[in-house]
């Protein structure tokens, strides 16, 4: 009997789609002939909202897109605005933001690790990973007051300096985290079942990966050496001593290995950044963005007016546009801000790495089984908040 292809719908409500993603699969038995992702189930119109908010009011919006690495988004948005303004932040702020960004890389990769393991049926790494994430949640909370929606940066600096003892807790985390990472490593990396589920699954070559717009660990797993921290460095990344793991085969296993190794390299960067964290102010004392001190406000009229204008109107950014990208947790995270000299952006565009990464799933999953489709989806490390914005 000739078998006919079948159309099934995975999602949008599904435990393994990592968010509200709908995958329309044409199957021949268990083999995927074609898969089409359908997105938009989390479209929250951030970009439109941004046009109604002043430059600093957009920072809380940035947490809610990639909710797995909120500080990363906070940082890249203000970095883009600062570049457009030509504003240079203090040395302490630069190192502080590097600390935040690398901490978020570990934070996001831990969630990826936990949920990918759970997708292949391994429940224990999920619990271990979440236990470690709780320590980073505590660090977030001690610094910003919120576990997830941190909103820690402002144009020109950060919302506040680190509280006493925060860097010691972070150092503590950096020292003790490798132990858990090694435990999870021993559970998965040489595990026969995990190898069977990930080796040679979802292979993509380097040139195809670039053409399809892959960035981040997905691209590096296919053998392409493109990491914004090395190729277009910012915040003195060229002075930090770290390696960028590059894969060979471009399959799910390589994507797994690249992310595991990236966590270890982030630990190296964190240690170096903690060692070199300078003293001094965390916010730059630039009249375009900084509020004058209360003493000055009470003593002279100009400071009072300056304070008043900055509070009521917000900062104003000169006309122009700027695209600024960092090596985000999922790939090249870019922010394109367009200003016409006012207090609100004309256009705020987020270049979401997961959006472009997800579009490749059709090519990756052809010919594989349905269960491999789930594994491929997990290995891409997508977050729907960022895809749908």
């Amino acid at each position, binding site marked *: 009997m000739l078998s006919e292809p079948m159309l099934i719908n995975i999602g949008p409500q599904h435990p393994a789609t990592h968010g509200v993603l709908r995958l329309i699969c*044409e199957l021949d038995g268990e083999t995927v002939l074609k898969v089409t992702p359908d997105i938009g189930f989390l479209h929250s119109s951030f970009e439109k909202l941004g046009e109604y908010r002043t430059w600093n009011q957009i920072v809380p919006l940035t947490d809610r897109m990639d909710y797995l690495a909120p500080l990363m988004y906070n940082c890249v948005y203000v970095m883009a605005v600062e570049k457009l303004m030509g504003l240079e932040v203090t040395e302490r702020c630069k190192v502080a933001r590097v600390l935040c960004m690398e901490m978020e890389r570990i934070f996001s990769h831990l969630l990826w690790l936990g949920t990918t393991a759970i997708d292949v049926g391994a429940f224990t790494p999920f619990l271990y990973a979440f236990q470690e994430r709780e320590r980073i949640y505590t660090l977030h909370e001690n610094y910003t007051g919120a576990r997830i929606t941190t909103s820690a940066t402002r144009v020109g600096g950060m919302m506040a300096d680190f509280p006493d003892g925060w860097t010691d807790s972070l150092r503590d985390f950096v020292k003790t985290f490798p132990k858990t990472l090694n435990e999870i490593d021993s559970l998965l990396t040489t595990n026969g079942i995990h190898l069977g589920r990930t080796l040679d699954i979802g292979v993509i070559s380097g040139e195809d990966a670039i053409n399809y717009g892959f960035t981040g660990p997905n691209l590096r797993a296919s053998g392409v050496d*493109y990491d914004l921290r090395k190729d277009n460095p910012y915040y003195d990344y060229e002075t930090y001593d770290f390696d960028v793991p590059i894969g060979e085969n471009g399959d799910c296993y390589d994507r797994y290995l690249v992310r595991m190794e990236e966590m270890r390299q982030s630990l190296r960067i964190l240690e170096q950044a903690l060692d070199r964290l300078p003293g001094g102010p965390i916010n730059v004392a630039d009249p375009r963005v900084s509020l004058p001190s209360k003493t000055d406000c009470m003593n002279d009229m100009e400071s009072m007016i300056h304070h008043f204008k900055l509070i009521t109107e917000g900062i104003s950014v000169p006309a*122009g546009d700027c*695209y600024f990208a960092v090596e985000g947790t999922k790939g090249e995270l*870019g922010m394109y801000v367009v200003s016409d000299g006012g207090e609100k952006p004309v256009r705020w565009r987020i270049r979401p790495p997961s959006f472009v990464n997800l579009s490749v799933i059709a090519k990756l999953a052809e010919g594989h089984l349905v269960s491999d489709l789930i594994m491929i989806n997990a290995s891409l490390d997508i977050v729907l908040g960022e895809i749908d914005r």
Partner: protein
Amino acid sequence: MAGENGSAFDAVEQGPEASGRNTETPHGGVGNPAEHPSVTALQGRFDSAVLRHEVQAGDQHVVFLDPGSNRAVLAWLRDDPEQRYDLLVDVTAVDYGGGRPLQIVYQLWSVPHKRALRIKCELPLDGLSIDSVVQLWNAANWLEREVYDLFGVEFRDHPDLRRILMPQNYAEGHPLRKDFPLRGRFSRAEQTRRALSQDYHDDYTPEELEVGGAPGLAPPELPISTDEVGTRLD
């Protein structure tokens, strides 16, 4: 923040307004094209297509192209060994409002040469149509669909140009345009009603609906209404 004589909340009804400081589309600083090898090469080779060049944010070079020749120039930028912009980072659009032309923005990166370049094409609001570059970079597929969905720009020769973020039955227009109000054009009641009455046949392409020879996916409507269920005694 406050409008001329209206309340501060007028913008919410009418769509975001520019701050009104510049009446022209903001231009960047005049920069030295020689600082960027691709810009000089472009100006030399595609003299008629390159309309102008700008430098934004200190060191970001932007080249404005004639929209009709975007595919030719971008193909050369991708293939020429000195340029090799093999990674299409982003395709987006900027609507400045007030009747000004819409800009389509291409952000390019060359992996071998480690260079970035921004290309812009300006389209008049009554002619929002441009050639698609999906044939050059597959990354453009979804990125152009999003620009179509949110701005209403038609990309000619795009393999699958339909809405991507908004529902397929969305009838209020293209949300990121400046004349589109923040809360949408319909009332909340109407939006809820339309959302709950989405026909999921719209979610599938015609090819998908034909898969397996299955002409329809929904179970057929019951021959009697559910009010009558249980009342018929045959």
